[in-house]
């Protein structure tokens, strides 16, 4: 029973981070209909920024969010201006290949700059060393903090999209790009903003993951591209609430598969397979997502 509760809570905590990654991808897809295959690589960039801030400036990994968010936001806008915007009208085929190519470039630039070795991020202090004991259940404080920061970011984004004028114009653009343009919304600006926020969310997720992983390497982001897609397909493309639920669902599925998958089926190492199988099943039987509906 204790294993069960432990697994359940771990799943939810990881799921919060998956949700954040999925939401970033969702922003970009919702507003521009561009599927960003470089998303996982952007998570990796966020992790490297955190490592740089930690090991050269001595900044606490969680505090480095104040660096990651703005830097990645600007990076997103640059990517948008230079690469994505010129291909917005190109066939989807080319857009996918372009973002895939950008992902490869990011990973290999990291490889060139920092080598393929693990770079350690091992801060000490009560936040990082201590655990919370509730009966037989043991929880890392850092996981809890990462989860709550992810929740705050998600909530802030939700508020931004539903309450502010710019947020509303983003949702309008997501619903109908042409109509939004006719209503006087600067669609180009909105797209840049969406990419900026999407990339910043990926970077923030990277920052929050760093103290949990405690290490960074160039290929660490690769699994997150696919995970992000699983999240948004589960939750329905374009929906923030959907992505949050989808992220937590995926976190739970992976946690339980990791804890309970029998050895003859590959054990814990094969746990991600369950997420992918659910992904395929959802695509097959309910392509609009489990909670499909509104976009953004």
């Amino acid at each position, binding site marked *: 029973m204790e294993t069960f509760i432990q697994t359940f809570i771990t799943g939810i905590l990881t799921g919060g981070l998956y949700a954040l990654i999925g939401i970033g991808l969702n922003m970009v897809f919702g507003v521009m209909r561009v599927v960003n295959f470089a998303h996982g690589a952007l998570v990796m960039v966020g992790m490297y920024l955190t490592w740089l801030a930690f090991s050269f400036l001595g900044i606490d990994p969680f505090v480095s969010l104040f660096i990651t968010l703005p830097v990645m936001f600007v990076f997103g806008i640059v990517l948008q201006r230079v690469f994505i915007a010129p291909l917005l009208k190109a066939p*989807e085929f*080319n857009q*996918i290949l372009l973002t895939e190519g950008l992902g490869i470039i990011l990973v290999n630039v990291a490889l060139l700059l920092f*080598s393929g070795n693990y770079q350690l991020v091992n801060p000490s202090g009560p936040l990082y060393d201590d655990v919370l004991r509730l009966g037989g259940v043991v929880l890392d404080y850092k996981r809890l903090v990462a989860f709550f920061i992810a929740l705050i970011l998600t909530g802030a984004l939700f508020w931004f999209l539903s309450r502010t004028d710019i947020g509303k114009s983003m949702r309008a653009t997501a619903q109908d790009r042409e109509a939004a343009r006719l209503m006087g919304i600067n669609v180009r600006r909105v797209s840049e903003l969406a990419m900026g926020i999407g990339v910043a969310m990926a970077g923030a997720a990277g920052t929050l993951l760093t103290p949990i992983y405690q290490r960074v390497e160039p290929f660490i982001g690769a699994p997150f591209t696919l995970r992000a897609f699983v999240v948004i*397909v589960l939750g329905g493309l374009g929906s923030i609430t959907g992505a949050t639920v989808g992220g937590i669902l995926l976190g739970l599925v992976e946690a339980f598969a990791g804890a309970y998958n029998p050895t003859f089926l590959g054990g814990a190492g*094969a746990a991600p397979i369950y997420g992918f199988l659910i*992904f*395929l099943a959802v*695509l097959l039987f309910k392509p609009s997502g489990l909670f499909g509906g509104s976009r953004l």
Partner: protein
Amino acid sequence: MAYMEFGPAARARRRRGYVLSAIIVFALAVLPIVLVEVQGRRANSTLALLISMITAAGLGTAWNILGGYAGQLSLGHVAFYGLGAYASGLLIEKLGVTSWLGLLVGPLIGGLVALGIGWITFRLRGPYFTLSTIAIAEIIFLLSKTLEPITGGSSGLSWDLNQSRFWPRDPQWLFGPTPGRVPYYWIALAITVIAVIISWKIAHNKLGFYLRAIREDQDTAATIGINNTRMKLTALVISAMLVALIGAFRANFEGAIAPDTVLVRSKSLEIVLFAIIGGMGTVWGPVIGGVLLTLVGEALRGIGEANQLVYGVLLVLVIFFLPGGLLGGAKTLLARLTTRRANQTNQPAALREA
């Protein structure tokens, strides 16, 4: 031109094409004998490179049937490559049967799995299809890594190369004492020639027209009575079987398989790049792309870990500046030159050959 043209001039041109192709294949088949004569023992490393170039051309050609003709972007083709390699490797390592059987069983398994995958994924379009291919490749990768009793886990399987020899012994009267890669070379060449012939046949056949119609617009294709799912499935199965065949061959040639060599994600991308850089949707583009990119890769081996950077940069550059690949670019250039020349004569435009 990718479609069939008629009339005496076209027929003559086609006949010239057949003769030229036959001459090239013959020259390629004789090449290793010359190499062994000239280079002696050193010929083996040259042959290894040539085999890589030939299989790359085959892989690009196979991917192109689905990706180029039908416009379905698979980023998970390594799954079929790996399935072929594992099927054939398991046959040798566990059962010790002849390598030829692997070349048969590998594609069969690849084709069967492709049928299943197609059934699931071809209801989906665009990014969903692409994502499913990645997900399935990832599932197979993880299975190969974790089902240790069967697959040997992360370290994979290996066997004595003598077990996976297509010839009992190299014909000594032909190559002297060099322990040879020549038979492997011939098999690789045969496989790639078969792939190119199939690709050419499809391009000039009804199936090719259907696939291109689907690529241009799935809804319109359906409206004019094309069974989209069936056609896409056909393209996928052919493509998968060819890739699995090459994977099976590669396993025999290397004498070892492991998840990180035959199922690694970057291999999928490499296959796509062969086709895209050469020229998607054409018969010869993927061949040219495969050969050139393998040479580039060989030249870049010295750079070390980050050699994939070049692939990424090439991909972005091609998407931006040369969407038709090298072949497309060359055609545009040629067309521009000939138009200029044609404009100088006073022939009416309608009489000019397209």
